[in-house]
């Protein structure tokens, strides 16, 4: 059993906080559902804490945490009677490896970049993002409020996301260029 002490809990907390956003993004990419992601993140964190005495300080906590998270996702998938996205385990593992790369490489400074890109959105686009993400309004309700069809709302969301993605990539590249 681990000799849990004061110092390890502080270290663990710090490492977990530093990696928590990346872990969330990683798990969400594999399950595409926020409630499931939160549950699995909590399960993974619990397991990481219990095994923390086997972690070598100085090594890559994020990589280890994603390995544990991936295991939790696989476990969860196998327990499901049916999957909302019916892909084979092999494809899921491929997704996991891409997701890990995305989090490790594009993770740097992503928050600030995202903020500046969202700030660049026009009023109507920014309002739609706010409703969808900040207020959690369903697409059905948004379509009723805007008096458009659900398909029209989805098209709009897809366009905004494409724009955000392009903006982020452009800014990340210049940021990486600055750092090197």
């Amino acid at each position, binding site marked *: 059993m681990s000799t849990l002490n*004061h110092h390890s809990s502080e270290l663990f907390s710090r490492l977990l906080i530093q990696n928590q956003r990346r872990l969330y993004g990683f798990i969400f990419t594999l399950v595409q559902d926020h409630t499931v992601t939160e549950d699995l993140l909590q399960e993974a964190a619990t397991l990481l804490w219990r095994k923390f005495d086997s972690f070598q300080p100085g090594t890559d906590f994020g990589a280890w945490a994603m390995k544990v998270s991936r295991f939790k996702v696989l476990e969860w998938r196998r327990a499901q009677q*049916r999957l909302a996205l019916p892909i084979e385990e092999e494809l899921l593992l491929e997704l996991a490896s891409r997701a890990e790369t995305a989090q490790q490489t594009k993770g740097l400074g992503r928050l600030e970049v995202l903020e500046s890109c969202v700030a660049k959105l026009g009023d109507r686009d920014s309002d739609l993002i706010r409703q969808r993400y900040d207020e959690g309004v369903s697409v059905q309700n948004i379509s009723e409020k805007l008096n458009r069809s659900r398909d029209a709302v989805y098209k709009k969301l897809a366009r905004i996301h494409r724009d955000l993605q392009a903006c982020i990539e452009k800014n990340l590249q210049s940021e990486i260029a600055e750092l090197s």
Partner: protein
Amino acid sequence: MKPEELDILIERHLGGDLDVAEQKLLAEALEEDWAIERFVDRMTLAADLHQRASIGIYPSRSVASASTRSSSSRLWQLALVAFSVAATLLVAFVFRKSSAPQPIAVLVSSDHASWEGSLPTVPGSELHQGFLELRTGVATIRFRSGAEMILEAPAHLVLESPMKASLLNGAATVEVPDSAKGFIVQTPEGEVVDLGTAFAVSVDPEKQSSLFEVLSGEIEIRPNDHTATKRLTETEVATLDASGVSRQLDLLEMQRSPDLAEPTVRLKTNGRELTIIRDAQYRNSLEPDVMMVKTSQVSAHFDRRAFFGFDLSQVDLDGGEGFPDAKIILNLAPSRHGTATLLPETSLFSIYGVTMNNAERVFALKDPQWGDIPDTTKAELIDSFQVSRGQQTGVVEIASQSLVNFLNDHQNEIACFLVVRESGEKGQQGLVHAFANSLHAEISGPSLEITLVR
């Protein structure tokens, strides 16, 4: 598939708006390299946007509170502190504004309805994509699109999306307001599109035909083999089978094969359920919508047992000799207490039959004490079952000769049962198991199913 098409599919998947066929389509699209890249980018962005919007707790505050804790002599106390520090942070990580997976429909009302499996029967329950089997009664389901379906048992229904359902067996009436115009009911021989506003459908899998009657408005019937589609208007009746659509002028009510299952009675606990905890000062750890079960050799204070009862006087044996067969159905529910990682790989439970003549009084107690329920040494062992470590939901069925004997010994009384966890845990923070009781919003409480005639 074009990138823009994939984008839309992904958006709708995130919105929970794909039907079963479209989900397969998306899965297949991901076989392509470019599609995987796009999918991963899109999901990463969605996760970031979601987290950006959520509330977080400043980490430094929580870590500071950990460092001010005085050191304690006992190792387990320290472990508890460290664990609760991590646990506090974990709570901070679980963002409060979680968006639940979008339900497809809501159960509006049910008349003596019982479903196969552990589905909710409380009106207002949210129904998700999947397969439903209505065993008895009549149920009304409202889809997110506004379409409303009244379903009569026995029926097999697949909820595909807010605008589509498949009726594999059974009868239903569908009412479709403007918002759901175009609602589709799929039957084994073809699909029906409701152009507004109401129609009745009856599927007979044995005769391999379906019957449609338009109550108001218009429907379009599309046979599977893409032969001529037919439009039916108000008061028109037609059958659909392998040979196509045929209008019926004078048709008797469609004969439906009744449920040929043996007559069974399903009893519920009707509020006769409680959890007793060994140390009454921890009463606050009990949850109102579940019965909790735990045994800990580490700290017996938190031991809990589930106690519930069924009123057998409701059952009319009709001059019969006794109950030939019976089973108890319990549904596991997340207890939200403790961690499964401190449990052995499987936990062993026992269910006992308890004979007591003051059962009603005990169930009515506001504050039942450990001593109010007879101990297991004075009870009859009915059966044992196992639950594996990773499992917090699921159905447990208990059927044994001991159960039948116990029921027959208490024919006009309240049959009481005690559920105890025999196996322990590695630490006192071990998972508390829980079974839904009659108050649980989403999961059915205990039922007793009795077969009357063999």
